[in-house]
């Protein structure tokens, strides 16, 4: 049994959260909302119009439109707060001045006004990079180090958490490392031997909630990582295998020192306009594993291992890609069919119907079918061209099935069913004139589509025959 040395006050009732729209915050908030130990959550949000809070919560959610650097925007919201959870930070390639303004000065102001407002606990999420041996050229780490000192000297009951590399859907490091996967190569900075201990974002939020529940605001710093340690390169290899489906054929090692030196020179002499900062390369060089602590020990058994977090994140990324692709095609196809923008109901039904009606047919499309779908996705004109061709020469195309599914939904949706009814009475003359116009247009589209698509159709068919012959 772990005994926490210092517990203060009663259970957290009102939580003031910064960074709710960020990577960790957006995963923490939906877990805090249904928490019965919390009565109210106040989220400090810079751009409330771009913030979509999760629904279904037991707790009351208040959006505080404000900015860390302008305390007058959030002062009143700090009144009566039990716990501040401070996640907001400038990260990655932000200009160094922003790191210091937001991470250091922003934290200083928040701490100061929390104290004035009588906040009982202050939970600060820092970074493992603070303990790297050399922080020069890494303003993010330096600003976090300064912020930690501000929190430590605040006089408030506090807790500082230093997560290692945090992995999950939308994790900045996951996105960056994904860019180093350039099949068939894997780009590696340095020798890749630096030890890392990635943590899954849900495990991090579990630990944060645990701190709040157990009131572990005992003035300590907890380093938090996942259960597995790896050399950096091994972690990259796992990401490569998840994304590509096999190990990398070749690793291209890029020297870190010259790159950092060059970036440093640029930052000092020309300005920090480049998309990367030299400090960001520190993770490739320095040990990023943690020192054991009671919080980690308590949760490590339930934590997700490296392989699983890589697979889960990859799966979630793929699912979201597929979801987004479906939404984009539903929008395009609705415009093509009835000249309207689909509402959320139609988009949801299309995605749902896709799962029921077209589950196997649309996975792993190949050859001409995939070509048609891709071409049709370029715009409504292309959709029309390909649809017309498929009507005559490729009736079972995935494109036709998708269009028909959407059509079935559109004709049965409150906002669009009237699109299939004549809007007004027309005379026989006008009707015939319209029919001639449509007929001529359709004839022209058919002619062009045949000229353009027939060679591809024949080509793909020939290729299939040749491949089939070879296999036989």
């Amino acid at each position, binding site marked *: 049994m772990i005994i926490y040395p210092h517990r203060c006050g009663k259970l957290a009732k009102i939580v003031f959260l910064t960074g709710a729209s960020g990577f960790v915050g957006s995963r923490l908030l939906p877990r805090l909302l249904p928490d019965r130990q919390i009565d109210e959550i106040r989220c400090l949000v810079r751009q409330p119009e771009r913030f979509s809070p999760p629904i279904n919560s037991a707790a009351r959610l208040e959006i505080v439109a404000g900015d860390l650097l302008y305390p007058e925007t959030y002062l009143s919201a700090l009144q009566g707060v039990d716990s501040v959870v401070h996640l907001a930070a400038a990260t990655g390639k932000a200009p160094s001045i922003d790191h210091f303004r937001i991470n250091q000065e922003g934290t200083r102001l928040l701490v100061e006004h929390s104290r004035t407002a009588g906040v009982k606990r202050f939970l600060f999420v820092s970074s493992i990079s603070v303990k790297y041996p050399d922080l020069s050229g890494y303003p993010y780490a330096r600003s976090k180090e300064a912020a930690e000192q501000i929190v430590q000297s605040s006089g408030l009951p506090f807790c500082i958490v230093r997560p290692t590399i945090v992995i999950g859907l939308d994790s900045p490091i996951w996105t960056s490392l994904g860019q180093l996967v350039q099949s068939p190569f894997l780009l590696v900075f340095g020798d890749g031997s630096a030890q890392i201990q990635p943590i899954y974002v849900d495990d991090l939020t579990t630990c944060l909630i645990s701190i709040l529940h157990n009131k572990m605001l005992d003035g300590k710093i907890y380093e938090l990582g996942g259960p597995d340690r790896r050399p950096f390169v091994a972690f990259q290899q796992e990401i490569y295998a998840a994304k590509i489906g096999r190990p990398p054929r070749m690793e291209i090692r890029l020297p870190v020192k010259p790159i950092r030196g060059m970036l440093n020179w640029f930052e000092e002499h020309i300005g920090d306009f480049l998309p990367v900062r030299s400090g960001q390369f520190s993770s490739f060089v320095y040990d990023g594993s943690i020192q054991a602590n009671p919080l980690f020990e308590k949760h490590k058994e339930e934590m997700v291992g490296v392989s699983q977090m890589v697979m889960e994140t990859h799966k979630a990324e793929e699912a979201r890609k597929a979801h987004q692709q479906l939404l984009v095609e539903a929008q395009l196809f609705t415009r093509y069919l009835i000249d309207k923008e689909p509402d959320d109901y139609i988009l949801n*039904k299309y995605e749902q119907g896709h799962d029921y009606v077209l589950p196997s047919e649309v996975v792993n499309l190949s050859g001409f079918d995939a070509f048609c779908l891709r071409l049709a996705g370029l715009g409504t004109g292309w959709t029309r061209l390909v649809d017309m061709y498929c009507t005559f020469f490729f009736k079972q195309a995935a494109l036709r099935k998708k269009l*028909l599914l959407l059509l079935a939904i559109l004709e049965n949706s409150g906002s669009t069913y009237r699109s299939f009814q*004549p809007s007004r009475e027309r005379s026989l003359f006008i009707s015939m004139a319209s029919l001639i116009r449509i007929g001529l247009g359709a004839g022209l589209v058919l002619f062009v589509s045949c000229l353009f698509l027939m060679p591809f159709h024949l080509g793909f068919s020939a290729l299939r025959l040749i491949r089939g012959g070879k296999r036989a």
Partner: protein
Amino acid sequence: MKPTILVVGSGASGVHFTLSMLRKGYRVTMLDVGWAKPPIVNPEDNFDSLNENLPDPAEYFLGEEFEAVILPGGDDDYITQYYGFPSSKNYVFKPAKTFDYEADGMVPLVSFAQGGLAEAWTGGAYPLNDAELGEFPFGYEDIRPYYEEVTRRIGINGAADDLARFIPVSEALLLPLDLDENSEDMLARYQIRKTIINKKYGCSMGRSRVTTLSQDQDGREGCTCCGRCLWGCPNGALYTPSLTLETCRQFANFTYIPGMFVHYFDVDARKHIKNVIAESLQDGRLHTFTADTYVLASGTLSSSKIFLDTFQRATGEIVKLTGLMDNRQVLVPFVNLNHIGKAYHSDRYQYHQLALGLEAANPFEYIHGQITTLKTLQIHPVLQNMPLGLRSAIEVFKIFRTGMGVVNLSFYDHRRSENYITLSPLPESWRTKLAINYLPEPSQHQMILNAVKRLRGALRELGSIVIPGTVLIRPIGASVHYTGTLPMSEKSGPLSTSKYCQSYDFENLYLVDGSTIPFLPAKNITLTLMANALRIAEEAF
């Protein structure tokens, strides 16, 4: 004391037989699988307001699993249907796991719902004439009182018009429903050009006979033209047998036992049925029910299977019941050119309001057609069959919409030995599987081509054209008029029934459904099944 009666099945014939027997004071028990109809959704809404008021209209119209979405099939069967059954009627075709079959040459539909297959019908109700009753052991005058009685019971609307040449007119007919504009236009043109149409194409046209109340009757409300026929009439104006089942359930001398699947009868050495063995669908246990007289009314396929299982147990022999019949149906989509571009109204009666008859050299070979103009059908199956990209197809469809329609042509069938049903034993089980074999008559194809040609001509005279490449010959089984496996005949013989549909094989067994029909005319047979069931109830008991 009157003998006790046990009826199997709650379809059209079963419920009307039962109602007559109840009124005569018999004690009747009905065993039925009896899938119940789900409650009507938003009964006050019409088609348009339903679309707007339902929180999830696509789920209602297409089904929870999008089962009413029709996508292109394989190359061979690309055009298979112009509409899918709406999910609101899924219960009608919900299978019973206790009923197993294999079919060659036909695609059978079986229903275990309360009210049976007619719960999903379009209400066409036409009495047969003497020519069509030629092979029956009775004539039109014999069955006429029962046609009248059924007409009064369920409410049939229609008119004494040109079709009276082929279809006897009941005195109890209700006034016809108001015609939709497209049907009205076609009928008016027919009146002007009927001499040519009659003479040149042997075609007559008139109002179809439909089991929909055009006025309030017996506590039922008349049709409100809400446009929801296909998804289930919300106020019961369109008759379905479950309404009569409800009436039966008001009688104290009636016992309705749903959830029971009847397997076979126990028969003694004198071929007298002792009791019926039924399986509870809830717990799979077998139950025994006893009565004096047993009546099969579960539809030709189910009744024949029960008969075959009983016969096998009584004699040890698996026999073939020959003479299975079904109407061939052909769908002929058309466009009334005089009506294109006209205003669209969804608040019209949706099903067929006009019918046509194509004369034949032999009167019993008459070809019957029902004309359904397009109102609120699901349109994506139609659009995918148009020779245009879908965008253009929608534009053309909107222009054509109010002029579109489909003629459902129906052809007679007669009993042939190559069409039969029998049993196929299941290994290591006491259960059996029904094996169905059907071979269409080779000459039928030519007959269809001739009929479609005549129809094209007649429609042309009416200012309508048949849309090229869209004529669809539906598979055998689609019309769901399965009949003829245990035909009624005055000549006593095995595997047949008497004039009163009493089995010649088991003396206390009656069959009141389609299995006893000796000839299947082109007209929908359901009205005759109901009238025949009444005839048996009145004359045999």
